[in-house]
């Protein structure tokens, strides 16, 4: 029998769960402790923010909130590898990537606090908003990449989807389009092992999620998503390739959702405690901190001071959020069309009249 095609999926890891280097070809950015410290500080900030947001929800000051606990390395690597004029298409928990790109914590809170203005990012004005319908953002990113190709702009579009989302039609459609048109599009699957209560094993018979890219003729890579250095290396590679016209790529970031799915979920109903405990051993902050401590680039004192600083900044953001007044009621009419059609004017007037009573 002859062989029509053959493929390999590589797995990339630099830091083991203890923070020990497992390869000796450190990329340039990782040889600069200052850069690594900055990335660590962002990851750590995200975690402080995240626990504060959960607390706000528990005390009735926020709606349903999707925690990013455990995803910090993957998210911060994505955000920091992108240029500011690249386009990011998030799902709903990539705050790490978004903070790096300039989205404000108060905007995250406004969004989950039931206020559309949270999506009016003060950061990258062209980034896509949070995307609730799973995996649809993948096609928006591919569409953005298509726009870049048509306009000959050296920009790259990056989307994030979950392990569950990688089952969805839109995920395949997007990578297929990227392959067919050689688009500057990087599809990152953040595989945190669960889609609400459904384990990754029930989503697909595929051995890796990275290999889904083979269906589209894309280059694919599986990465330790808890290893900031590996994730950033993979993203740098994928984005550079894409920017230089070599087409799209699928990156599977293997990580773990350490929290409930959202604050509306109770993972104890379906998830063994032991699994979560074991996952904490591999979590992303610890290993990078250990590595930096070993490099003497970081210390317990730094840690303490930075935590305090994070709390301070987060408090400012929370207060700004809590002080945001609700939108005027007519706001529900004012962004449906560029100009309010005649047919809607009476309804808008009715709403205003009801409000005034």
């Amino acid at each position, binding site marked *: 029998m002859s062989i029509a095609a053959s493929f390999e999926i590589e797995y990339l890891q630099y830091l083991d769960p203890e923070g020990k280097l497992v390869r000796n070809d450190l990329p340039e950015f990782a040889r600069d402790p200052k850069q690594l410290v900055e990335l660590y500080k962002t990851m750590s900030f995200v975690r402080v923010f995240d626990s504060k947001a959960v607390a706000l929800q528990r005390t009735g000051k926020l*709606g*349903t909130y999707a925690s990013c606990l455990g995803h910090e390395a993957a998210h911060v690597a994505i955000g920091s590898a992108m240029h500011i004029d690249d386009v990011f298409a998030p799902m*709903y928990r990539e705050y790490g990537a978004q903070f790096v790109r300039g989205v404000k914590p108060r905007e995250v809170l406004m*969004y*989950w*606090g*039931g*206020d*559309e203005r949270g999506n009016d990012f003060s950061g990258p004005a062209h980034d896509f908003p*949070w995307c*609730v*319908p*799973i*995996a649809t953002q993948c096609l928006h990113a591919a569409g953005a990449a298509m726009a870049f190709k048509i306009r000959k702009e050296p920009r790259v579009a990056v989307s994030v989807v*979950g392990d*569950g*989302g990688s*089952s*969805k*039609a839109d995920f395949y459609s997007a990578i297929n389009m990227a392959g067919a048109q050689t688009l500057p599009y990087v599809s990152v699957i953040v595989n945190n092992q669960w*889609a*609400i*209560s*459904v384990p990754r094993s*029930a*989503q*697909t018979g595929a051995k890796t999620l990275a290999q889904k890219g083979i269906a589209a003729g894309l280059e694919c890579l599986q990465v330790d998503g808890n290893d900031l250095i590996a994730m950033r290396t993979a993203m740098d590679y994928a984005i550079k390739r894409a920017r230089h016209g070599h087409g799209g790529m699928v990156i599977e970031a293997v990580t773990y959702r350490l929290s409930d799915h959202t604050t*509306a*979920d109770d993972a104890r*109903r*379906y998830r063994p405690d032991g699994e979560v405990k074991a996952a904490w051993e591999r979590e992303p902050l610890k290993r990078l901190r250990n590595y930096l401590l070993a490099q003497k680039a970081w210390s317990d004192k730094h840690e303490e001071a930075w935590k305090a600083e994070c709390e301070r900044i987060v408090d400012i953001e929370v207060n700004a959020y809590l002080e945001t007044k*609700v*939108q005027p*009621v007519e*706001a*529900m*009419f004012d962004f*449906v069309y560029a100009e309010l059609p005649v*047919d*809607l004017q009476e*309804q808008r007037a009715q*709403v205003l009249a*009801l*409000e005034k009573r």
Partner: protein
Amino acid sequence: MAQITLIEALTMAMAHEMARDPSVVVLGEDVGVNGGVFRATAGLSEKFGPVRVLDTPLDETTIAGIAVGMAAQGMKPIAEAQFDGFVYPMVDHIICHAARFRTRTRGRLTCPLVLRVPWGGGIRAPEHHSEANESIFTNVPGLRVVMPSSPSRAYGMLLAAIRDPDPVIFFEPKRIYRQYKEEVADDGEALPLDVCFVLRDGSDVTLVTWGAQVKETLEAADALAKEGISAEVIDVATLKPLDFDTIHESVKKTGRCVIVHEAPRTAGFGAEVAARLAEHAMYDLVAPVERVTGYDTHIPLFRLEMKYLPSVERIVAAAKRTLAAG
């Protein structure tokens, strides 16, 4: 007989039919061990096993497509869309296939599936979790579109939907999933589909509604009664095919009609009710028909959503306008 909520009645109906009929299966996202994000399928996996209570991959196209395939091959799938806003990727298989297999094959293959859709706003949920999108299906021949508004109707209508030989889109008003409890016997008695339920007799004005809005409409009838206005309240219950006769009989009596629904007004299903009145009740009406609906805007995120939904105040005001008019 247990006092149960609307959502518990749904669970009870599914458990009843699964025990009675081995061809009934449940499928969707998180319907298994987790028992559904609203707990509608709680306990079913334990009772009937993971093969008949199937956690699907996260893809609504898959859920709809395999439900169609299973139904055409003799199963009775109850598919769940996790929220109203996620039903759109299912629309192709529902409209092009579920609704058409019988007619396409002249009855050789049929598609007796039920698509359960937690429906509507008012639960302070994120975007796409609050849609009143029944209009997507009401123009499609071959479908039944139903929506219960009480625990007992939820039980009886879901049984009927599962037993129906044709596809049924079963909207569940999630805002009233746990609004109140009612005695519902697990007696396997289905309620009829294709009929409206008159929830309250009245003589001055007919209030026509469905789903969660039944709550506000009944409250409005109470408020009107206090002012000496007698309102008849009709729960449409099955939107398609429509039982217009019941509505017409009521309007013959009252001469006035207020239609209340949560979906945006334009081309919402209330338009069909009003159109039938314009065609058939012209000489019965003494006042213009009124619609109290969601606005022709997207339902806002939750800080503003209660300003969007029809309120008791708006319903009462509309009813009074019909009384002032004629």
